[in-house]
């Protein structure tokens, strides 16, 4: 029941992404709020529903973007898996884990998107995409990572009060 909060949050996240963040470009890249949010949410120790959140995020994002929905979903699930793997290894430094997941997750998602777009016939130059899109997006995602992690921690404490009390 508490996972129902994923719908309004991710819906607002996609709207915020499409209406605001997509216009705040650094070179040709911009931050991916849904990716960063999923990374932050997956790193919360008490959260056990991150894959469902990834599916909902992919559903909403896939509705807006021209990128095939399967590629979006694959990217977001990769971020969740990456976060779960890393959180077990660097659980004592959650901020470090957040930055690491954001860094690797951005590269992973962008690589998957690039490959799918190339396979579907969009002529994207590798070096140009890397320098104009991936690296600037990575910088912006890392800047967004810290505040989003704090929001995700607050939301996790609110939606899992029994864990906070324990």
């Amino acid at each position: 029941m508490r996972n129902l909060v994923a719908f309004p949050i991710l819906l607002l996240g996609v709207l915020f992404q499409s209406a605001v963040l997509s216009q705040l470009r650094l070179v040709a890249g911009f931050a991916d709020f849904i990716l960063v949010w999923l990374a932050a949410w997956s790193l919360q120790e008490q959260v056990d529903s991150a894959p469902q959140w990834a599916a909902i995020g992919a559903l909403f994002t896939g509705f807006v973007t021209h990128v095939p929905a399967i590629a979006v979903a694959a990217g977001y699930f990769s971020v969740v898996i990456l976060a779960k793997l890393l959180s077990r290894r660097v659980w004592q430094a959650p901020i470090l884990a957040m930055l690491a997941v954001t860094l690797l997750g951005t590269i992973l998602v962008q690589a998957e998107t690039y490959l799918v777009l190339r396979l579907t016939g969009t002529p994207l130059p590798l070096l140009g995409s890397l320098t104009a899109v991936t690296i600037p997006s990575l910088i912006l995602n890392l800047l967004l990572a810290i505040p989003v992690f704090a929001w995700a921690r607050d939301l996790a404490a609110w939606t899992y009060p029994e864990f906070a009390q324990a």
Partner: protein
Amino acid sequence: MNFHLSRSLQVTVVFLIMAGILALALGGFFGALSQRVIAGLVSIQSWFSTRYVAVEDLLSAPRDIVSLRTRNAELEAEVSQLQAQVIELQQRVNETDILAALVDFSRANPESTYRAAAVIGRDPSPFLHYVIINRGSNDGIRRGMPVVTNQGLVGRIDAVISDASRVQLVTDPGSAVNVHLQNADADAVLLGSVTGDVSLDMISQEARIEAGDLILTSGLGGGYPPDLIIGQVVTTRRLEFELFQQATVQPAVDFSRLEIVLVITNFRPIEISPLQVESVQ
């Protein structure tokens, strides 16, 4: 008798002294002295007055501070409200300017029918250049319809739902538009890129193109109507060993500031892929 005499003498002496002092004062002999005395008195009065005002302020301050704070809050709220109104009015003026320009454009091009739409979002993927508009199939929008502004071609409808549509911009890396270079009388293909820059390719080596040449849609391929303005040639690249020339383009439309666009609703793209398949076979 002596008593009366001495009393009269005293009065006379006092009178003479007073008259003398008065005469000396009127004559200006006491100027420096009187200034010092007056200055001293003024200083003392100022000292008392300052202390009195300070004590009065101290006693009445709490009441004044409360009323001043209330008034300050009221004024701040009023300023905020007025600033919001100014911003809203500026936005309305901008929208009115854009709409007026679009109306002028539609009047100047009466052969097409238009549907105005507001840009409400952009594609969440940074690799792509698509925008979302607030008109969909309920407004008669169909896939493939060209999208323009008063400045020139924006792109075409890529996907439609009931109340919104997604527009592929000509700057998208997957976009290819057949164009005509007006001055050189040559055809070319306009290509988008991941950075949002647009360029021309497939220009014949024989074509004489120069910076500033106007680029229009050619209508070839049936994807766009002919003679829509796209931009101007900025630089050209011609190498002897290559089959075609290339050129960089300055688009007429500022794609970073797209707010309101027009969808050409009476244009249907022509599907020529069956012809292409037959020709290949």
